[in-house]
Each structure stands twice: as C-alpha cells, then as structure tokens.
C-alpha cells in the first residue's frame, strides 16, 4: 500500500475547467450537498480500508519565520489574494497510483451550484515511505 495526499487548492492549480462562484455565494442546500458528498466519500473510503485522514483549513494563513537569536518570530499576512490557497486535504492509503488517481477524480466531481460537478483540480502527491529492509 502507498499513501497519497489529495490536496485541494482553492487557487493555484491549472486553469479551472468551469468558472464556479465562491462557495459563500452558493445556496445553503448546495453547500450542504457539497459537504455531504465529501463526508460520504470519506466514509466510503473508510469502508474500503483506504482512508487515513482528511482536514479542512481556514483560509486565514499567517507566514512566520525566525528572526535571529533572542528576537520574536516575524509574522506576515494573512493575505487576501494569495496565489496559492490550500483549502484542505485528504490522505489515502491505496494499492496503486492508478487507484489514487481514480479516487482523486471522484472527489473532484463533488457537486457545486445546481448540483453540477465542480471539476476542481486536485493535486495527488505520494508520501515518501520507510526504507525497505532488503535492498541488495
């Protein structure tokens, strides 16, 4: 089995296939349906023994860095219009890369306005694993 991160970008991926309004302009029932789809998807993967973790992120990110000995860390942001905005992730543990792509494709079909798929781009990133014991 291999673990993959399915990264959900609100912004920063390839050009979107369809222009979708920001989620805060959707009808409440459309938001409910979208959230339900995500929950059902996670529950289904738990049932197949492939779910590891899923989290949503607040958009209010702050950049932080070290600023030298004895000084407090420097912070910057949050930025209203960052180029790359990550909205959340899901971690899956699957038999093959093809299966990871298949599942990302399904997750990308989550419904948006009018119940139509939003066709969002998801980034699929393999985890680095532990080293095998037998290598020679």
């Amino acid at each position, binding site marked *: *089995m291999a*673990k993959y991160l399915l990264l959900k970008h609100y912004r920063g991926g390839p050009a979107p296939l369809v222009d979708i309004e920001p989620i805060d302009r959707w009808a409440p029932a459309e938001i409910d349906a979208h959230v339900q789809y995500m929950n059902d998807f996670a529950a289904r*993967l*738990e*049932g*197949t*023994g*492939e*779910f*590891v*973790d899923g989290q949503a992120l607040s958009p209010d990110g702050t950049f932080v860095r070290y600023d030298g000995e004895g000084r407090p860390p420097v912070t910057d942001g949050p930025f209203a219009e960052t180029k790359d905005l990550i909205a959340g992730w899901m971690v899956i*543990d699957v*038999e093959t890369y093809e299966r990871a792509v298949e599942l990302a494709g399904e997750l990308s079909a989550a419904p948006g306005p009018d119940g139509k798929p939003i066709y969002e781009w998801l980034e699929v990133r*393999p985890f*680095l*694993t*532990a*080293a*095998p*014991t*037998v290598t*020679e």
Partner: protein
Amino acid sequence: MNETLLRELIPVVTGVLVRRGADFATAEDAVQEALIQALATWPKSPPADPKGWLITVAWRKFLDATRAESSRHAREARVAAEPPPGPADDTADALQLYFLCAHPSLTPASAVALTLRAVGGLTTRQIAEAYLVPEATMAQRISRAKRTVSGVRFEEPGDLATVLRVLYLVFNEGYSGEVDLAHEAIRLTRQVMSMTDDEEASGLLALMLLHHARRVARTTPDGALVPLAAQDRSRWDVELIAEGVAILQAGLARDRLGEYQAQAAIAALHADARTADETDWVQIVEWYDELDRLTDNPVVRLNRAVAVGEADGAQAGLAALEQVDPAVPRRTAVEAYLRERAGDPALAARLYADAARAATNLAERDHLTRQAARLHDALRD
C-alpha cells in the same frame, strides 16, 4: 506462558474451530476474544493445558456469537451436520489457516493485515499503528478480507509461495510501532518452516535472519541509512548470522533452489566478509545469475549490475546496467555510483541529485542527497 508462546497457538486454535464447522470470520473473532481472556486470567491461574483451554473457551465464544445471530438455527444445523473431526492434525489445520489468509483472491495489503491478525494474533489496533492508518480503516480492511475468503473451502489446497510472499512483505515493509513487525515476520516464518519442512520457507527464514542481524548497523542513531560497505560489521549479530547460515546450508544441501534461498545466499556472502573489501563479489554475481534465472525480475538485474561493478570494475558494471530497463526504480542511483567509480564525478553528482528527486523513501532520498552534496563539494575544490 509468555505472550509469544500464547500467540503460537492462535492459528492452531482457529484451525480447529474452522475444522469443526465454524465459519472463518466468526471463529477468528471468537479466538481473539479467547486470547484477550487468556491474557487477563492466565497470569493468576495458568491452565494445565493451554491449547485445550483456548479451544474450549474460543468454541464457547463462537457458539455464543452464533446463537446471537438471527440465522442461528441454520448455522447450528449446519455445525451439527458437520462430520466429526477426523484424527486431530493441528499442524495441517494451522497451515490451512496460513493459506487462507494469503489466498490469491486477496490484495497483498489485505493478506498482510489478515495474516497478522488471524495467524499472528495481533489486535486490529496494533496492526493499524504498524501501518500508520486509523484503527477503523484497518478494521474495515480486515473484515473485507474475511468476506473475500468467506467462500473459500478450508480444505482447498494452498500455495505456500503466496504465504511466503506475505511474510516477506511483513518483514521488508515493516514500519515502527508498538509491535516489531520484523520479529513478527521471523516468528511466523519459523512456524511455517516447522510445519512444512520446505526449502524455500527455510530460505526465507535464513534471508530474514541474515538481514535482521545487520539491523542496528543499518542506520545511524538519527535514522540516516548506512550503506552496506560503510557499516560497522562488529555490530552485526553473529548469533543470528550463524543461525541463518546453518538454516540456509541445510536447505541448499537438498538441492531444490528457489529465489529466497538464492537471496539468502547473497546475504550470507556479505555476512561472511569481515570487511567490505573481502566480499566475494564473483560468487555474488553467480548467485544473481541464478536469481535472474529463477525470477525474471528487473530489480535483480539492477542489483546484479552493482555486483558486476564490484567484481569486474565500473565499466563492466555500466555495461551490465545497459541491460536494465530505465524505468526500474533506483537505476539512476546505481548509475551514479558506477559513474563515480568510473571516474566521472560531475556526471555522478548530477545523477545522484536526479535519483534523490525520484526516491520513494525518505532515508534513501536523504542518503542520495548527501552523496550529491559530497561530490559537488569535492568538485568545488
């Protein structure tokens, strides 16, 4: 009785229940419950006959579970109609359980999980921790695996090769956790070897012991990989090596060579060299030729190219590498190593950096990155 000895009895007891007509999934749950009860009560009042105790308690728990279900009449009728068990052959039953847990209809990961639980006696939580997934996910993986094999006839002839493959995966891809999966793989392989008297089972056990012997020398205290040539050989476990070599030789003497015996032979030749320079690379190349003949595996041809490079020089190694599919993982890392030895550090540095980017595990990536950095550093001088 310690927990390891207790867990030795798991496949035997489950096998007896299934032989008596219990369905595998319910029997397996019943044995787990009996195991938990044994761990709680045995320290104070150890039974005179541990196996008999476990069979009795597990059978009672199986009956309780069966009665609790709506189909109890049908099940009880079926159990009652089963022919009385023939002459008790615990070993055969336990071995059948190994076959069932490694059934070809299961994916490798499902077979691993089911084997660790149903024959290893590990809890679902321990297995989940070992493979870094939530317990609920692992529970589902195991119950799906049980459903997949629910239609398999218990007496169906099994394939030992699939069992050995599963045990090899447990050993080779073990993560860290509360349970030491390398130990567990060795324990189960010992049990399979004692039940089958098979040369490849003993070859696999020898392979595991010989690699396990190097475990403490394989990594630095902070987790960095130490390549074989740089390992402190005084830290290798000589007892494990002696045992691995003895098991391997006994198997080889029977002249039924297989891939695990050939791999163990290579590990034994490394174990035999007091320093990396004393390694008998010519013989190692011969074993890779055997292995290539037995497996037709591109990774074998890749490792053979490394051995040829040591035996006959870097140019010969590079020539052997040309026969290896460029898509084979770690091929670039091997080429980097051979290019450096052939006197082309600039190309080697570039290849090491490429190999690091393509590495699929963290320790290897860091090792390759350090190799690239070392060469870049030397090239600046």
